[in-house]
């Protein structure tokens, strides 16, 4: 069970599903344990290529890390053939996993600053390990604020856990389409930014969600005075090899599987301004 060499593995390692939790009607979280050798440790924001045998392989960010343990936690939304196959896995099933790939969140750069996390939809999954790291080191950072947007209350991820985070962090949740018993906010997640009690020049932001949401959030923060290099965003493109060889995930001069998926807004903004890049 010793981790393999620190380089990411190009061949899939077999991992067994040891726990499955249904988050919503189309999202599930899996805890995977290595059948033999474990992959090198992952960092928050990095991703694995997860292979559903006989169906295909997709990139999935880590949504939880068990410090010192070789287990991996992934949250998958069933939207395509492979993700539907992964969503359908049961405890005891086996998948292939390659990784760790990509550049993760640089939480250390937020030392001494307030931390703002903005998540839209499934974008909360790659941010969850970062939030847990921030909560585990309260003296190292200023105030932690987490803003979450979702389609409906039923689509909210990690509901019990986000409620618990509220004891130590400021958590605001908004939905696009409320259900009858919903008493929280309604509207886009950018509307929550104006209620923040952080100083834009003294905050480090971490943003993940649909690209138009990332654009709106990062744009508002930078207009308010947050330096672009202090806005870290996680971008999504068509990752295939995970190692910067195939070029499927190329965004201008950036290969997102190798140089991303996390990058700062100063680098991302000019690239995203080019249509179909």
């Amino acid at each position, binding site marked *: 069970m010793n981790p393999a060499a620190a380089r990411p593995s190009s061949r899939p390692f077999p991992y067994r599903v040891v726990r499955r939790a249904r988050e919503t009607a189309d999202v599930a979280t899996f805890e995977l344990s290595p059948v033999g050798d474990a992959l090198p440790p992952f960092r928050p924001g990095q991703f694995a290529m997860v292979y559903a045998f006989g169906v295909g392989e997709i990139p999935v960010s880590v949504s939880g890390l068990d410090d010192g343990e070789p287990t991996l936690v992934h949250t998958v939304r069933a*939207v395509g053939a492979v993700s539907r196959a992964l969503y359908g896995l049961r405890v005891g099933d086996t998948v292939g996993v390659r990784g760790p790939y990509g550049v993760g969140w640089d939480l250390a750069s937020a030392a001494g600053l307030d931390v703002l996390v903005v998540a*839209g939809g*499934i974008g909360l999954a790659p941010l969850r390990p970062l939030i847990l790291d921030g909560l585990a080191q309260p003296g190292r950072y200023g105030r932690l604020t987490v803003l979450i947007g979702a*389609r409906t209350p039923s689509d909210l991820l990690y509901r019990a856990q986000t409620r618990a985070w509220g004891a130590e962090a400021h958590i605001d949740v908004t939905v696009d389409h409320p259900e009858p018993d919903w008493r929280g906010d309604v*509207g886009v997640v950018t509307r929550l930014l*104006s209620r923040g009690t952080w100083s834009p020049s003294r905050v480090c932001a971490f943003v993940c969600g649909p690209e*138009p949401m990332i654009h709106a959030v990062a744009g508002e923060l930078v207009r308010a005075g947050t330096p672009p290099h202090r806005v870290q965003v996680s971008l999504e493109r068509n990752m295939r090899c995970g190692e910067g060889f195939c070029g499927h995930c190329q965004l201008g001069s950036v290969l997102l599987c190798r140089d991303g998926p996390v990058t700062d807004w100063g680098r991302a903004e000019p690239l995203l301004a080019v249509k179909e890049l």
Partner: protein
Amino acid sequence: MDTGMGPRTVAGRLEALPDEQYDRLMGLAREVSFPAGARLFEEHRAANQFWIIKTGSVALDLHVPGCRAAVIETLGPGDLVGWSWLFPPRQWHMGAEARSTVRAREFDAEAVRRLCGRDPALGYPLVLAVAEVIGHRLECARTRLLDLYGPYGSEPPR
């Protein structure tokens, strides 16, 4: 209000007015509070006031026959509640309900319109501030039409 992004709210915009103009505008306001569940206004009624929220949350809703009113958006501290008072026919497009105890500044819309007419140097920035609120809410509504979190909006680019 201790909010770093405050200038993006209408309260932040108005606080940027010169002191003399700000004081004259605030002279037309009174402090009010609403308990949770109180209706601030109903759609199609005359829009004679507007509010700037200090604390609490207000839901904007639309009546749907045979159903519970549909909540379109919620507003919070620093937000403007109501802009229909500025443009004919000066009737509310939606209803509004306090979701929690709300403390707010309530303005007499007719008095504010008269003040703006007498003093365009105050009226212009006020109308700009309201126009920015309307533009931002339109932008948010259009974004929500995309259903970005839905099964299609969240698929990777093809």
